[in-house]
């Protein structure tokens, strides 16, 4: 796995020392809050509703057990014993003290971690498929390119002060688990007719108050040109992007105003000057980075394992967990385990220090020391032998980490909302908690099947509500929390923005509304039709009629 190089190490240490000085000067009164705020934000430190909040980057969502243990240690020592994994493959600590933050950053640096690029109008921490390096449908490991982009974009002088924050996501598989059509730039590894591997380049996707599905501006970009082409996109954006209006400063707005074709043309024109220049990636450089992500030493194993099969046959709980939480691995005899951070009634994405340590132990013993963080606020053990699955499951059960609900109705994405966030209109997490309690019957959840509910506490859409099959948006009606529901959104390769079903529901009524929508779906679905397919077939009306009939 990747270890950051000497340059990174020296740089991060220097940043920690610098920030320690800045905090000392702030506490001594030599810096005012106005002077200090941009400095703390550059180090991932926000002031939220209750306290400071520290956002720590987990580049492309990949952690070693040593790093996971450090995250647990920080939660226990400097916070309230838990951390919150987010949709951006970061971890947030909700209660750090300002005076402790330099110490926390120093501890993070010991395990090659930091909070850089988690805030500000820079190219943010690049996100990637959470099954990277493991999934059966992968063409190449997307983290190789995420890392190449990270090295190029980190602190790139030209791109540290963009018109707005800039988010890049990358997937190596045709089944998009990284929501690449909903980022400023999305990259999808693909093959051209000649069988060469390159990127489909998607630009101008985004959520927030103007949700837009990205547009493909290049069907195939050879790998060698990745950086020169990205730089061309960023230059066009940097020159033309609006800085006068925060909400219009995103590349998605520029693309809408310029038109995708004209934008693509301008990128190509800019690219002419950059192509084949210093940014060209030689094959050796790609190989060098590829070596960081070399597959672990898999054993040659048969595709099935008797002990695993027996347990699955005898233990229905285990079998049910396997059905929802275990996915196909590219290596025979191995599997991908998703660890649900959505137990009934708990806050999606929260993990206690003890849970983080349990996951670290499992990764060390059974998954080549690797853990991945998913944008759906779960964790992943990417490389587990089939024969080890029963042991892994037993330990997960002991730590409350074995809820068999991945992809199901209670596997909800929820932003921090009004419980933590300064910008919120309404709470998100308790709505998720109440929905998971309403659907507490796990067998019923399995009968309902794949269903993605996503909740945001305001239009910034940190909880991805626009792309939930059922999306829930918190709105403020005369000081009361209300929730607007959208249907039919999707973040995968069939990306779609959900449609508003009708008037918003109160905090008390929103769970009943979700229940009603699920009932309508179950009543109308044919065979094993997915929610969005039923919705596409029958339209919004039947859902509406049932929802508002009683009112």
């Amino acid at each position, binding site marked *: 796995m990747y270890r950051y190089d000497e340059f990174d190490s020296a740089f991060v240490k220097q940043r920690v020392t610098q920030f320690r000085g800045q905090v000392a000067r*702030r506490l001594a009164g030599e810096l005012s809050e106005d002077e200090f705020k941009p400095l703390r934000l550059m180090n991932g430190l926000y002031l939220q509703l209750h*306290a400071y909040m520290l956002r720590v980057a987990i580049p492309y969502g990949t952690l070693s057990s040593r790093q996971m243990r450090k995250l647990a240690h920080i939660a226990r020592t400097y916070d309230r014993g838990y951390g919150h994994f987010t949709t951006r493959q970061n971890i947030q600590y909700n209660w750090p003290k300002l005076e402790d933050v330099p110490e926390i950053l120093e501890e993070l640096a010991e395990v090659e971690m930091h909070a850089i690029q988690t805030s500000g109008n820079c190219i943010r921490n690049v996100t990637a498929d959470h099954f990277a390096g493991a999934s059966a449908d992968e063409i190449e490991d997307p983290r190789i390119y995420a890392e190449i982009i990270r090295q190029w974009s980190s602190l790139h002088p030209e791109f540290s002060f963009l018109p707005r924050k800039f988010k890049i996501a990358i997937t190596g598989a045709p089944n998009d688990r990284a929501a690449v059509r909903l980022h400023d730039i999305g990259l999808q590894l693909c093959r051209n007719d000649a069988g060469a591997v390159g990127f489909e380049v998607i630009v101008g996707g985004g959520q927030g108050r103007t949700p837009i599905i990205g547009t493909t501006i290049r069907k195939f970009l050879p790998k060698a040109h990745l950086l020169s082409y990205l730089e061309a996109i960023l230059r066009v954006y940097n020159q033309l992007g609006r800085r006068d209006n925060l909400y219009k400063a995103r590349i998605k707005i520029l693309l809408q105003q310029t038109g995708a074709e004209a934008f693509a043309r301008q990128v190509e024109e800019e690219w002419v000057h950059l192509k084949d220049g210093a940014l060209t990636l030689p094959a050796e450089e790609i190989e060098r980075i590829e070596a960081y992500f070399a597959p672990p030493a898999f054993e040659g194993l048969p595709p099935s394992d008797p002990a695993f099969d027996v347990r699955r046959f005898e233990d229905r709980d285990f079998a049910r967990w396997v059905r929802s939480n275990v996915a196909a691995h590219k290596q025979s005899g191995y599997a991908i385990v998703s660890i649900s951070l959505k137990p009934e009634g708990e806050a999606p994405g929260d993990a206690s220090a003890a849970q983080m340590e349990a996951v670290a132990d499992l990764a060390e013993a059974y998954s080549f020391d690797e853990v991945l963080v998913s944008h759906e606020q779960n964790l992943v053990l990417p490389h587990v032998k089939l024969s080890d699955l029963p042991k892994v499951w037993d330990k997960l059960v002991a730590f409350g980490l074995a809820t068999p609900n991945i992809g199901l109705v209670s596997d909800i994405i929820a932003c921090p909302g009004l419980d933590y966030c300064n910008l919120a209109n309404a709470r998100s997490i308790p709505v998720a908690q109440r929905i998971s309690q309403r659907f507490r019957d796990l067998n019923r959840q399995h009968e309902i099947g794949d269903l993605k509910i996503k909740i945001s506490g305001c239009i910034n859409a940190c909880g991805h509500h626009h792309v939930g099959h059922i999306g829930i948006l918190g709105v403020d009606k005369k000081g009361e929390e209300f929730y607007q529901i959208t249907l039919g959104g999707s973040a995968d390769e069939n990306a779609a923005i959900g449609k508003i079903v009708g008037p918003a529901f109160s905090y008390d009524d929103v769970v009943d509304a979700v229940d009603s929508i699920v009932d309508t779906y179950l009543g109308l679905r044919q065979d094993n039709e997915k929610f969005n397919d039923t919705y596409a077939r029958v339209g919004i009306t039947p859902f509406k009629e049932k929802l508002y009939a009683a009112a």
Partner: protein
Amino acid sequence: MPQNAKTPKAPALKAVTANRLREGDVVYLTGSGLWSPWLNQAAVSDDAAVQEALLQRAEADVAARKIVAPYLVELAEVDGILRPLSTREIIRAAGPTVRADYRTAPLVA
């Protein structure tokens, strides 16, 4: 979650809230000029001039590096208990509603 308190007839009762600079904790300005985590200890007034004076005092403590980001919060007093009018401020005063052990300062001690 309790319902929001009824909006009283104007003018509203207000107190000053802020975060401690060093720790980040939510605090309220008390009559003796200290900062308390307990909303019920806050100095309150429905007089705009007095409210402005409270805010001035808070600004002095910003300069003295005790607190950051002070502002006035609207309250209602019911049976001797101060309660913010908005859900946001109720949660800010009492802590996240997501789990009992994440609570910071119950409104009613």
